[in-house]
């Protein structure tokens, strides 16, 4: 009962932050709308490339244009939710470097969650808009598929966020890892938006372990094509494992953290 209460309270905190952050970026309404439309146009351009590609080369290892649409919709929506709700996760390494974690450590809520939800990326709403639009209008899913899609994109958003936290937590041990984190995260996004069948051997193994792109693109796509419980279990397991590794890395790193004696204010 207590844990259910705590879960509801945490969800309410996340929702409150998401609303407050969105209201903050909406202050510059025109800029916000331009950013959202720009990101939607960007994602649509990539999909346009794939459309032209499949027009010229109809089949690539059994892949069709609808598969690419699903792959892009899941990746973009997962990334969009991660950046919109947990948008401050990418600032973690600079917070560690500058001693900026102090403001979060003194608060009653769990500090890692608090750091992650403290900011949003307005362009992320463009990714979400594109993903939902592409999935609904190009794939024409039924109600069950829509529910599955929602569950899967929430899981992929956790994977994206956890991966970013793991990369940024390296700053506790290695110093400035901001560039490295950006490069690795960029690589994860790149690998997640191409058909998994073009990768073989050791690379494919890497994409299901060190760089979990397979759990962002390949497994959700397979589940949306043909649902099986073992595959769904693997997806849930991978998500939980990623989150646990991220929390573990952060906790381990926190022991090495040195306060910057910074005076900060969370309004």
């Amino acid at each position, binding site marked *: 009962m207590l844990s259910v209460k705590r879960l509801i309270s945490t969800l309410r905190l996340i929702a409150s932050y998401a609303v407050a952050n969105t209201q903050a970026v909406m202050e510059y309404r025109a*800029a916000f709308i331009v950013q959202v439309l720009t990101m939607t146009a960007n994602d649509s351009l990539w999909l346009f490339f794939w459309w032209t590609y499949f027009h010229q080369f109809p089949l690539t290892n059994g892949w069709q244009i609808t598969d690419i649409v699903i792959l892009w919709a899941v990746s973009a929506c997962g990334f969009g939710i991660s950046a919109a709700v947990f948008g401050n996760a990418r600032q973690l390494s600079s917070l560690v470097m500058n001693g900026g974690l102090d403001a979060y450590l003194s608060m009653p809520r769990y500090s890692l969650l608090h750091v992650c939800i403290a900011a949003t990326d307005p362009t992320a709403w463009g990714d979400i808009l594109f993903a939902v639009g592409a999935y609904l209008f190009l794939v024409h899913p039924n109600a069950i598929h829509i529910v599955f899609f929602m569950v899967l994109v929430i899981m992929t958003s956790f994977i994206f966020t956890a991966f970013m936290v793991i990369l940024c937590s390296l700053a506790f041990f290695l110093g400035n890892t901001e560039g490295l984190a950006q490069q690795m995260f960029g690589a994860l996004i790149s690998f997640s938006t191409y058909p998994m069948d073009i990768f073989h051997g050791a690379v494919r193994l890497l994409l299901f372990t060190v760089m979990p792109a397979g759990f962002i693109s390949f497994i959700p796509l397979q589940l949306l094509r043909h649902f099986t419980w073992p595959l769904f279990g693997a997806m849930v397991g991978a998500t939980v494992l990623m989150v646990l590794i991220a929390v573990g890395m952060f906790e381990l790193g926190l022991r090495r953290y040195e306060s910057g004696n910074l005076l900060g204010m969370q309004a």
Partner: protein
Amino acid sequence: MDAVGVRSERRVMQRWRLALLKYAAVLRVSVENNLAYMMEVFFRALLLVVLVFILSQLWKTTFALHKEKILSGFSINTMIWYLIAAESIALSLPALTKRIDQEVRSGQLAYLLGRPCSYILYNFAHYLGERLVRWSMNCLVGAGLATLMVGWPPFTWQGLLAWPLVSLLAMSIDFVAYFCIGLFAFWFEETQAFSFVFSRLTLVLGGVLAPLEIFPQPFRSIALALPFGAILYGPARTLVHFEVDRFYQLLLQQILMLVIGGVILLVIYRVALRRVNINGG
């Protein structure tokens, strides 16, 4: 009278020479600044390795499935070298728009305007220094990767000689476009979105994912007619498939784009300068 004419001509020449030296000095300082952070430049180039690896896997699979050795005039060898050439230009772009945007918003522009040099040319020299270092590193890392993946390049000596020239012109076109977008900060709250759209249009319609010949009609003709192809596709194709006619055509297209873009840039700059308010204090 003749002596007066010769003297004034000499004076003009001297002024031009000094101006050139001035911007050459800015370019040299910018190159040295970037060379000082060599490891950062190197790590940036690693993204090129990831992207080219992914694209090469896609095209290797495509070639294998279609049991073709040549697709639209490209073998897998020339395709990989083409991708390296296009990506080396695309990934060398510095955050020019962001810098101009910040200088306009923070008011730092006012300090720079007071300097005895053109704001546009100063920024061009600074941008070129940064970009040349990144581009050179991308070419080095990319060449190593492509040699490992598909062996020696199929270049001709004409292609190799033309490559730096067409790349330099492509970078100059990028400068004109991104500088104009940066100046939009005088009118718009947000300029990064415009810069983002332009960069994505350049990547997709400019042929960074594949040579434009690969794409079906009418997309191919549209993409070839648009200016984005002159930034990535044109230079990369010149390197791997040098043809004299196409080279002259590309040069003409790039120079025309620079002239037209330059005029637009000057107009925007002049109009924007009227909005600058400098207050003492």
